[in-house]
């Protein structure tokens, strides 16, 4: 069954979706847990097996065709899978971290009545995500792309009794769709120019001797619009913070570790295209950096534990796009890999905190949890240090490489990019340690009621936290970008700047510790210092808390006008007044004319006779006149 391995990997979670969805409610939580976690774990092992096969074979990739979707003329739309080093890494992350989060969910969602529904949705998500990363063509990728959007919608709005949560799901889907429109346009252009949608063929065409007849930058930009939607970059970032309405494991899996990295995966996968699209890459780098910066500034003032992490995710994704924009594709994927570990650990840790606090998510009402939930605290601290870039944890390695290439890459790197990115890293370290302190280390500000119930989470949850914390600690030693070198070459570095490499590493470490120190100084005693600062910089604080009022701007510029135009112009003026109005006008004209004409029918016999005689006389006269 060697050749069907990839199809099997993809189909295992789909089986989970059907089994849990159809039989789950009847067969109970045990069945759902076993199927819901077991199938992703099986997929993980299947991936490992495929990986060994890949390493053993000479070819750069394993290819498999599941079936032919459609044939039109000479073109065959195939549902095919492609397993090279990049796919292998992504699939391992998806199935590996995914399985861990499934296991965590058995503890977190234990008391939820929608248990079976939750796991079926989660399995469905995994199916589509695997389609996305294993797809050989833009078509299969797009199927997975839209599919994860669907799963995200279902899971964000999981507790749909609350209209706000349901609305958050809808917002995510619509924002993604806007990006998808760009994706479609890019896909159409590629099909027209190259006659193929296969990733390997596209890369080969752009890397080849003859440049294709379409502008690589145009295609690159269009596909990037899609990536912006999925990976929550400016201007389509607005859905991610709202997506925190979903259960926390969902936030960890979909909105941190996997789905949001789809955009980075797309750009990295098409590195052949983007290497020949300098304008598009420039835009990607700038957008990524801007997003990283702005999201970091917003995260500094957030008071909901999940929202801090959400903005942090947006910011980290921005850094990944920065790396992509300067041609460091392998480095971006490296950060995807490390980010999956520490961000999942952070989100799941937050979940553990929320679980311990019986649902409280406001960090102003926390504090002093370190001693009460020690495992959560330690794992959270490790992951925080990792994201801040403290060596030798994973985040340090990946972030440092990004900063280096932002500075030194020949494909668009500059000191300005490096400086702003470093400042964002400083803010990241600051707000993450702020979060750590306010949640765990400061004196308690908890409600007495909540304080009594604080308890450590079950092993299903803490076990996963420990695994992820260890991975966050040691994961950085596996240099993903070297592993991916055959698939995506490293960018050319400006050799003149080589001597600055070590000093820059030093600055990066200093930045990480500076953030730690800053957070310690401001928050060690609790909220007092912060409140004073907030009063001094009230205006700035308001703008940041209002997330730069982007949501309000969109509503005012897009949402309301669309509704207003649709209702008042199209419906009232267009349909009712113009079209139906003219129709009703025509019919009333016909009726009035008929009414007037029918006055000839007086009912008077002699009048009719008179008319008849006049008619006869006229026709006689006419006949006599015309001979």
């Amino acid at each position, binding site marked *: 069954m060697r050749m069907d391995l990839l199809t099997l990997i993809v189909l295992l979670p789909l089986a989970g979706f059907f089994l849990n969805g159809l039989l789950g409610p009847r067969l109970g939580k045990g069945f759902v847990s076993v199927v819901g976690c077991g199938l992703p774990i099986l997929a993980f092992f299947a991936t490992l097996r495929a990986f060994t096969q890949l390493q053993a074979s000479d070819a750069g990739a394993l290819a498999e065709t599941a079936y032919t979707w459609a044939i039109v003329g000479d073109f065959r739309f195939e549902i095919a899978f492609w397993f090279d080093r990049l796919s292998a890494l992504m699939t391992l992350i998806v199935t590996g971290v995914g399985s861990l989060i499934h296991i965590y969910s058995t503890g977190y969602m234990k008391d939820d009545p929608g248990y079976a529904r939750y796991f079926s949705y989660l399995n469905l998500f995994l199916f589509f995500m695997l389609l996305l990363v294993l797809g050989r063509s833009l078509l299969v990728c797009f199927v997975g792309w839209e599919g994860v959007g669907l799963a995200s919608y279902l899971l964000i709005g999981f507790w749909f009794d609350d209209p706000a949560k349901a609305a958050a799901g809808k917002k995510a889907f619509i924002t993604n769709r806007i990006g998808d429109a760009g994706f479609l346009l890019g896909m159409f252009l590629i099909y027209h120019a190259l006659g193929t949608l296969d990733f390997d063929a596209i890369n080969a065409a752009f890397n080849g001797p003859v440049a294709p007849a379409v502008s690589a930058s145009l295609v690159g930009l269009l596909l990037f619009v899609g990536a912006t939607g999925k990976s929550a970059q400016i201007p389509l970032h607005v859905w991610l913070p709202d997506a925190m309405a979903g259960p926390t494991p969902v936030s960890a899996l979909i909105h941190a570790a996997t789905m949001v990295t789809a955009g980075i995966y797309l750009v990295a996968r098409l590195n052949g295209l983007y290497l020949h699209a300098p304008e598009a890459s420039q835009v990607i780098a700038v957008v990524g950096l801007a997003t990283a910066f702005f999201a970091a500034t917003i995260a500094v003032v957030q008071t909901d534990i999940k929202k801090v992490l959400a903005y942090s995710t947006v910011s980290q994704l921005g850094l990944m796009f920065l790396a992509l924009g300067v041609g460091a594709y392998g480095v971006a994927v490296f950060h995807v890999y490390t980010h999956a570990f520490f961000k999942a650990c952070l989100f799941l840790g937050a979940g553990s905190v929320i679980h311990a606090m019986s649902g409280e998510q406001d960090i102003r009402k926390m504090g002093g949890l370190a001693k009460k939930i020690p495992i959560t605290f330690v794992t959270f601290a490790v992951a925080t240090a990792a994201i801040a870039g403290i060596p030798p944890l994973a985040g340090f390695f990946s972030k440092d490489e990004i900063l280096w290439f932002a500075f030194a890459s020949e494909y668009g790197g500059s000191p300005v990019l490096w400086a702003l990115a470093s400042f964002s890293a400083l803010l990241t370290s600051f707000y993450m340690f702020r979060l750590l302190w306010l949640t765990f280390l400061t004196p308690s500000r908890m409600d007495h009621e909540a304080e009594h119930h604080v308890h450590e989470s079950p092993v299903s949850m803490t076990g996963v936290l420990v695994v992820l914390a260890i991975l966050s600690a040691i994961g950085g030693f596996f240099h993903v970008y070297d592993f991916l070198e055959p698939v995506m070459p490293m960018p050319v570095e400006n050799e003149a700047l080589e001597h600055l490499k070590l000093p820059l590493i030093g600055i990066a470490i200093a930045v990480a510790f500076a953030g730690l120190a800053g957070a310690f100084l401001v928050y060690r005693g609790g909220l007092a210092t912060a409140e004073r600062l907030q009063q001094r910089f009230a205006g700035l604080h308001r703008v940041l808390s209002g997330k730069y009022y982007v949501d309000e701007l969109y509503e005012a510029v897009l949402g309301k006008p669309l509704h207003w135009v649709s209702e008042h112009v199209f419906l009232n003026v267009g349909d009712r007044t113009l079209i139906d109005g003219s129709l009703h006008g025509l019919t009333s004209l016909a009726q009035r004319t008929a009414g007037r004409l029918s006055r000839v029918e007086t*009912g*008077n016999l002699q009048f009719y006779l008179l008319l008849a005689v006049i008619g006869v006389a006229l026709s006689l006269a006419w006949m006599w006149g015309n001979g």
Partner: protein
Amino acid sequence: MDRTQLLLTLSIALFCLGLVGVMIRRNALVMLMCMELMLNGVVLSLVTFAAHSGTLSGAVLVFLVFVVAAAEIGIAIPIVLLLARQRHTLDVGAYSGLKG
């Protein structure tokens, strides 16, 4: 004036008198009488032409016309009678139910 022309003039006059009578008079029976007058005018012209051209077909036609006229009166008078019973008047203006 020629005898034929005189007779034709008379028949036209009869016809027109009858026509005008039908158009002007409102009494149903009088309208019927005027229609008879029109028919007679036509019959007179038929006989005149027959006599003028020396053929018989015009004269034969007269008989046809008379029979039809008689049949017509035979049906028209009862109809008028029934209508008159309903509306209690012979005024044609009362029967304008098909107005509009």
